[in-house]
């Protein structure tokens, strides 16, 4: 789990073609957005350096980086910062900045800050980062000598005060001070913490005083000590790299440190995020409320998976208390999605905590737009948390302004990953922050459904979907039985069958069966649809006994491809007509428009809501999204060989 921090795991991996994309960067109206997009991935030090070099090349050629916001930061340090500098420039682009970094030669901290005519003071930067570690203060340990220890602490604080005053007078820039990361080498052992004058005790005291000093003087604190402790002090302090090149900490933490500096700048400029938008199923609780029901979703204490989701709910609630607005964006029927909040005793979040509740079957990009509009905030205020990589990819591609963290497979890491991403970094906390979430909530109107976002089709094409059809077989049987007995939502007839009955259908040559799997660039979705057709009473017709689909793949027009396949097999069997039936249940309203959408004609409507539909196999087959179609094992009822082709 520690690699969450070192490898910036909340960010997606950089594209394979990262280096080529850098080479292709050229001046133009979208350059700034392109840079920000490339920076918004988990870049290592070499990649950050390359990105910074590309930025320098473009700026040298006169390119403007709009809409990146220009900011000038002076960096004063007692260590080597040349390796750090490019990482800062690239990480700043991730947070929407065109960073100009000013740094004097090594070791000029006091001169630059105190001399009003120094290069830094004359350059009038927006902010000055004092990247000073314990070595900058030349702390002289004096174990057991209380007075000497006190004097050492005060001397350190005086130094900070002088630096701050010097910059105030010289150029009136904001100062950022860093807490000190304690070296791991102890003198006594545990006693170092308590005994005045040990290095650890001195550093503890200086850090505490520095935090107060920074906030009381209107300056900003960067808690480098916390960053170092998070990843481990022994790993942070590298004697080799200090001796060799005066690197203040191990190179592997440069991306993390640079990210923290950049997000601090973002907080200073008021660019931190304001809204946390949460997916529901498998994010806020384990399982799918529409399929599993209130009794079976996992959110209870005592269930390790449930506790992982509870930890995320707790974090969301704490964020709300400090003023972060909460919203819900879920592919669900609204009434079903609200049920756990109203009825489940262990769900911590309540509807009253959620400013905008968007549960419907629209794509998530459309719903996120609606949420932003509802709150009268820009998309760049939103963070969207979703366990499903396909949804994350869709939102990143259509709404690059929204922050979408990657999540680990194990929900135990959800809360930590969200916190590590630092989207809600703040440099101050005021009483009105506490009330902000309520304020937005009161002002939120009920979000109206928006028109479909353009570009969904193009996104579907980019998913590289492969759909695979097989008749029922032994390998798929257990999953088929599970889907037949568990799927509630996109299930046309909700007919439940035992394993024995499924086997009977599989073995009966007059029954046509189909299991469907879907893969895409994010991985294998597994079996996502099941179809059973039985010979109808009338001749040369099939009645669709069962047709169900996993909600995970809704909105990808999978059902169109399934129908096309079904028609092919029907034709091959000499069947001329397909008969479909919709039997309403408490949960399958979402499937009510299924047959109409696929070109079936309604021939009967029962008062109870059930309906009967027909479609000739000769009628024009439906339009299908681009996906690779593989059909196997339909021997001998179907074509004699494996067929493979692309439906365009």
């Amino acid at each position, binding site marked *: 789990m520690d690699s969450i921090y070192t490898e910036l795991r909340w960010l997606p991996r950089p594209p394979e073609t990262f*280096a080529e994309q850098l080479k292709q960067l050229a001046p133009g109206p979208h350059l700034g957005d392109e840079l920000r997009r490339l920076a918004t991935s988990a870049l290592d*030090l*070499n990649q950050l*350096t*390359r990105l910074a*070099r590309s930025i320098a090349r473009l700026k040298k050629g006169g390119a403007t980086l709009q809409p990146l916001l220009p900011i000038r930061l002076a960096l004063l340090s007692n260590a080597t910062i*040349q*390796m750090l500098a490019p990482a800062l420039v690239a990480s700043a682009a991730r947070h929407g900045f065109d960073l100009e970094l000013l740094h004097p030669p090594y070791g000029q901290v006091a001169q630059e800050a105190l001399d009003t005519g120094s290069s830094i003071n004359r350059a009038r930067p927006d902010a000055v980062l004092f990247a000073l570690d314990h070595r900058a203060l030349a702390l002289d340990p004096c174990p057991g000598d209380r007075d000497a220890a006190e004097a050492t602490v005060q001397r350190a604080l005086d130094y900070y005060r002088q630096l701050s005053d010097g910059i105030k007078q010289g150029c009136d820039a904001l100062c950022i001070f860093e807490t000190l990361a304690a070296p791991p080498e102890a003198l006594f052992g545990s006693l170092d913490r308590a005994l005045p004058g040990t290095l650890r005790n001195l550093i503890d005291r200086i850090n505490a005083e520095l935090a107060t000093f920074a906030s009381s003087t209107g300056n900003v604190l960067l808690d480098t000590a916390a960053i170092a402790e998070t990843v481990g002090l022994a790993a942070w302090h590298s004697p*080799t*790299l200090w*001796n*060799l*090149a005066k*690197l203040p900490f191990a*190179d*592997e933490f440069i991306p993390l440190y640079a990210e923290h500096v950049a997000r601090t700048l973002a907080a200073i400029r008021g660019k931190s995020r304001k809204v946390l938008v949460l997916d529901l199923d498998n994010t806020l609780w384990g399982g799918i409320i529409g399929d599993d029901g209130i009794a079976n979703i996992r959110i209870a204490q005592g269930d390790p998976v449930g506790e992982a989701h509870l930890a995320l709910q707790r974090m969301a609630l704490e964020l709300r208390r400090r003023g972060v607005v909460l919203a819900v964006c879920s592919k669900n029927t609204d009434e079903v999605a609200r049920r756990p909040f109203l009825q489940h005793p262990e769900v911590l979040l309540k509807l009253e905590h959620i400013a905008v509740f968007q549960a419907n079957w629209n794509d998530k990009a459309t719903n996120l737009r609606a949420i932003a509009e509802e709150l009268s905030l820009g998309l760049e205020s939103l963070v969207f948390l979703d366990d499903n990589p396909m949804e994350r990819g869709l939102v990143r591609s259509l709404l690059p302004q929204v922050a979408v963290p990657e999540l680990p497979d194990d929900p135990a890491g959800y809360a930590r990953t969200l916190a590590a991403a630092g989207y809600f970094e703040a440099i101050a906390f005021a009483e009105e922050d506490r009330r902000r979430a309520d304020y937005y909530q009161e002002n939120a109107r009920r979000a109206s459904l928006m028109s479909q976002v353009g570009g969904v089709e193009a996104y579907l094409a980019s998913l590289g979907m492969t759909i695979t059809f097989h008749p029922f077989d032994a390998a798929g049987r257990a999953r088929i039985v599970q889907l037949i007995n568990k799927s509630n939502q996109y299930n046309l007839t909700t007919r439940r069958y035992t394993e024995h009955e499924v086997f009977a259908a599989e073995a009966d040559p007059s029954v046509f069966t189909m299991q469907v799997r879907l893969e895409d660039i994010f991985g294998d979705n597994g079996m996502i649809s099941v179809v059973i057709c039985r010979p109808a009473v009338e001749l040369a017709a099939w009645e669709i006994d069962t047709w169900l689909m996993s909600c995970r793949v809704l909105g990808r027009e999978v059902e169109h491809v399934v129908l096309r396949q079904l028609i092919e097999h029907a034709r091959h069997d000499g069947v001329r007509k397909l008969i479909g039936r919709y039997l309403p249940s408490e949960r399958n309203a979402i499937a009510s428009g299924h047959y109409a959408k696929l070109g079936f004609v309604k021939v009967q409507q029962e008062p109870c809501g059930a309906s009967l539909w027909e479609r000739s196999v000769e009628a024009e087959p439906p339009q299908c999204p681009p996906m690779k179609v593989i059909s196997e094992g339909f021997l001998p009822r179907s074509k004699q060989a494996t067929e493979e082709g692309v439906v365009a």
Partner: protein
Amino acid sequence: MDEALIYAKLTEIVHDVLDDDGIVLTPELSAKQVRGWDSLAHLRLMLTIEKSFHIAFSTEEMSKRGRIGDLVGRIQARLQSHPVRQE
């Protein structure tokens, strides 16, 4: 790991670190002959080599900036004392 494989992997690393895909590594090539291969780039190069090959250099080895042939020799020696982890 055989020498050709080390050269191939090292070439990729050098291209990445020095941001120049045109560099061709030969045993006789020395850092001085390559544009951009300054002490800082050298340090980044050595740190990247450590991570890619799963080896650790001593301070002494890190600071040596000589011919490519010598560097490959040092990588080989480290790989023998610390066999590369299979991934």
